[in-house]
């Protein structure tokens, strides 16, 4: 209804990242991080900033555009509306009101500390403010806001869940109505009613039904086809007692036939909602004594880190260092042929660069690609690659064009944090490997104490080898470039 004659944009929030001061990370998803921040020019108003990594979006940005549009055009008391959105390098910042109690998911997680909560949770998109007001957010892109994807905590599904995080950003299918999973065309508003029913169960149990299964679409598809709430209910009501109204309401929502599900209007008239209490009830009974959003996020992050150390190495590498994709960059192109001085590129001997660049890359690969003469070194560095992430080799030999950016010139705290965690993790792995080997060789307990020192020595050795090889390679490249230059001068 169009009863409120409100201005579309009451206050214009600044579109410059310098106007915001980030206070804390309060959520993290596959391709987005949510921060608590203050907007300095606006009396330090507290805001939430969702920073979406655009490099992971499809190139037409249709989904991101739709979300941005929805977020700026929706006006409903129960829908979170963005203040503004703008790009900051590769990230899209969506600035929105800070909902101080965080997401329902995070609240539920606090209440079900050992629950198997999943990352793409519907309740993750329902935010609560300190006054108990409820708002829906996140319209279908990337990871959900305020969501702490805690799936890694549940060991049974962690492997499939984390591979899903990288490929299937659209989310886990636990909340999807059968007709949404089955067909690509014909579903309607009634699909949301199904999801609502699932969310109700999620809030009641701490996790959605079927979530003990790996979230493969095909599997869930097979099951939802025959999924009957009544069956589910029979098996599950052993410990928990829910009211008749609740069961009836959820049962109505989870009807296989979309047309038989009630519309939202009808659902609101259901007896279950008749007895609902207002937001005061929420504040008193749920929000009181709850840790802050920041604290809750930190806790789940710790849990995640702990569980990660247990799981496979390559998996959480990918997960942790989203930025650290195997990539190759070229320092500059030679456009100075035939006397065209388009973009003269030759090394200028910026040896210092070696020390400037800190971005973690699979630097070893640069070396491997070199010609035969480097073959000895490639062994050393490919070892080093696993151990120390080949740090620093990502530099590009300098360039005179002035066009190539030097990575990590400015310190990106996210990348730094990611790199550090990665380093820590690989160090731990290495420590285990080394001690295992030592154990095999000596079979002695006494070595334990000096493990770390030995480990450090090995790393130091590898590092200096790597450093030497880098220098060598750099010098060779320079020589090569100079020769080329002379050659082309001579031939002109």
């Amino acid at each position, binding site marked *: *209804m*169009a*009863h*409120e*004659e*409100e201005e*579309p*944009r009451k206050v*214009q929030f600044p*579109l410059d990242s310098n106007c915001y001061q980030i206070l804390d990370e309060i959520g993290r998803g596959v391709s987005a991080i949510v921060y608590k921040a203050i907007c300095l020019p606006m009396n330090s108003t507290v805001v939430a900033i969702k920073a979406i990594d*655009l*490099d*992971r979006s499809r*190139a*037409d*940005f*249709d989904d991101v*555009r739709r979300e*941005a*549009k929805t*977020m*700026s*055009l929706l*006006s409903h008391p129960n829908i979170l509306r963005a203040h*503004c*959105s*703008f*790009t900051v*390098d*590769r990230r*899209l910042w969506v600035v929105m009101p800070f909902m101080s109690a965080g997401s329902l998911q995070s609240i539920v997680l606090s209440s079900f500390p050992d629950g198997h909560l999943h990352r793409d949770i519907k309740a993750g998109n329902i935010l609560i403010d300190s006054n108990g007001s409820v708002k829906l957010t996140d319209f279908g892109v990337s990871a959900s806001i305020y969501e702490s994807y805690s799936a890694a905590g549940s060991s049974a599904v962690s492997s499939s869940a984390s591979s899903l995080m*990288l490929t299937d950003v659209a989310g886990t299918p636990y909340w999807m109505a059968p007709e949404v999973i089955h067909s690509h065309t014909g579903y309607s*508003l009634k699909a949301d009613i199904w999801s609502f029913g699932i969310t109700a169960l999620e809030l009641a149990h701490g996790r959605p039904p079927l979530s003990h299964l790996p979230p493969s679409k095909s599997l869930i598809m097979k099951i939802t086809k025959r999924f009957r709430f009544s069956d589910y209910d029979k098996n599950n009501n052993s410990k928990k007692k829910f009211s008749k109204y609740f069961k009836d309401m959820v049962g109505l929502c989870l009807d296989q036939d979309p047309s038989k599900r009630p*519309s939202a*209007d009808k659902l609101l008239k259901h007896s279950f909602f008749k007895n609902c209490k207002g937001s005061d009830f929420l504040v008193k009974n749920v929000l009181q004594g709850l840790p802050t959003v920041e604290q809750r996020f930190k806790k789940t992050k710790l849990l995640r880190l702990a569980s990660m150390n247990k799981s496979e190495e390559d998996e959480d590498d990918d997960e942790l260092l989203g930025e650290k*994709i*195997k*990539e*190759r*960059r*070229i*320092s*500059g*192109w*030679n*456009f*100075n*042929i*035939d006397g*065209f001085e*388009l*973009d003269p590129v030759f090394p200028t001997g910026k040896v210092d660069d070696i020390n400037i660049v800190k971005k973690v890359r699979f630097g070893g*690969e640069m070396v491997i*690609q070199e010609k035969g003469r480097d073959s000895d070194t490639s062994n050393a560095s490919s070892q080093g690659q696993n151990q120390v992430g080949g740090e620093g080799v990502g530099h590009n030999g300098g360039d005179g064009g002035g*066009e*190539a*950016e030097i*990575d990590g010139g400015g310190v990106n705290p996210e990348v730094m944090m990611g790199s550090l965690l990665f380093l820590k993790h690989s160090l731990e792995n290495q420590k285990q490997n080394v001690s295992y080997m030592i154990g095999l060789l000596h079979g002695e307990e006494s070595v334990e104490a000096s493990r770390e020192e030995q480990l450090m020595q090995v790393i130091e050795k590898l590092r200096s080898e790597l450093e030497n090889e880098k220098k060598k390679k750099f010098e060779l490249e320079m020589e090569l470039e100079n020769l080329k230059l002379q050659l*082309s001068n001579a*031939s002109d």
Partner: protein
Amino acid sequence: MKGLFKSKPKTPVDLVRQTRDLLIYADYNSDTRESKREEKMLELSKLIRELKSILYGNSESEPVSEACAKLTQEFFRENTLRLLIICLPKLNLEARKDATQVVANLQRQQVHSRLIACDYLEANIDLMDILISGYENMDMALHYGAMLRECIRHQSVARYVLESEHMKKFFDYIQIPNFDIAADAAATFKELMTRHKSTVAEFLSKNYDWFFAEYNSNLLESTNYITRRQAVKLLGDILLDRSNSAVMTRYVSSRDNLRILMNLLRESSKSIQIEAFHVFKLFAANQNKPPDIVGILVANRSKLLRLFADFKTDKEDEQFEADKAQVVKEIAALETQDHP
């Protein structure tokens, strides 16, 4: 008044007429008594919502084609669309959204198997000027932008926009700091450059010089990540379209263009690298490469081959691998004429 409106169901034609009357009122009476005006505006919002539910149906019923046709006919019989567009800033947010959806739907309604919206717009083509300039008004941009994208579904309308002076402004609109607006402008720009193949081909061949000069310097070499990324993707879409083959041949014969694409190839963003590759491959695959293009490729041969050696998409992509193999083959086989 109110009781009268509610008592009997109104025909689609009645609804359009009443809407038009109220729009005329809204257009001319900006300083009438506040309360009276508010009442009328509320009534207008309700009417627009009713129009929308006829065109789209509601939770109880599907749209009826006969009613839609009548509504459409009445709508375009007189100047209702112009009034609605002009009065849009005076409506509240919900009514603006409804109006946008109504206008969008009307573009696809056929009356006697004709898209009469197209006839209307051809006769009122200046409405496009209003819609496009909406990108300069933060509050209206998303509404006018959505209407605009629906209108350029008609080829004649798209041709008007392409040939207008507005085209140059899109290079600025795409880089407006408000992401939602910039992204909307980019979507419209993409639609203009890809939907009507023959019109686009004609536009590009006539306007090649200024268009690609702007495209290169403003978009491909923008400091803004998202602008570069969208631009290089769109460039690939444009050049790879068969109807633009003449333009493509011209584009890949330019050393400056090659330089820009090669710089994009060495971006830190994997996505930009991949998109840049899809354009770069055209330079390499060109069977009539000018000598200076060959020269650049040869001068950078080892670097290029090294780059492609471990250049992969995140997901397995057979077509990409095949293209890459082809490009590598082409570059490896190059001979320099100048430096034998």
